[in-house]
């Protein structure tokens, strides 16, 4: 590979094409602490979403979805 690049660099470049830079730019407007607080909120939401998903699957298994 020329200029010290490896095939891994080529793979990473492919991924780069799909990145929504606007999300990164929005995040950069926050302080580091605000970014971590945002992650904490995301973690809380992910926990709630998982619980809701489990409840939904449980409901389907017990046949009480009204379908």
């Amino acid at each position, binding site marked *: 590979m020329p200029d010290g690049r490896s095939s*891994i660099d080529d*793979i*990473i*470049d492919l*991924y*780069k094409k*799909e*990145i929504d*830079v606007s*999300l*990164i*730019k*929005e*995040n*950069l*407007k*926050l302080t*580091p*602490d605000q*970014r*971590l*607080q*945002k*992650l*904490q909120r*995301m*973690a*809380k939401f*992910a*926990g709630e979403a*998982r*619980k809701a998903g489990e409840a939904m699957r449980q409901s389907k298994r017990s046949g009480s979805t009204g379908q």
Partner: protein
Amino acid sequence: MIPFNPCELIQKLCASQVEFIVIGGVAATVHGLDKYTSDLDVVYRRTPVNIRAVVEALKPFNPYLRGAVQGLPFVLDEETVSKGLNFTLVSDLGAIDLLADIPGAKDYDELLEASTMVELCGCQVQVVQLDKLIELKRSAGRIRDFEVLAMLEKLRDINDTGDEL
């Protein structure tokens, strides 16, 4: 499902005066990456005093080997940490990886030189710098890191061009 509470984990480590450096997904978040992570990866200094501090910080939160079958006689105590190196744990505050030896970093001091003090959750915390974080991810050589690596390199490009706002 155990909730992930990165702030409280960090606060507990700080309260026990643990010497640690945040790496991984939380470090990426701190640098500006918009990607969810569900564990806190920290590199800790391997001294008896610090190992004691790690145990003091985490033991009250029932640390256990992540992904292991229940009922193993695992205890996070000084002897266990002293005789081990890297621990992938789950706790009442969420998942935490306690790491001492990672690809891309020679030792704690080398990583410390490539870290920056950041205020997080009311604590002063060492967070690995973006360039080093990229180096660590590359050294890990995991396929699942390719997307994150691309995002981190984009982030670095934005920072380098001063185009962040």
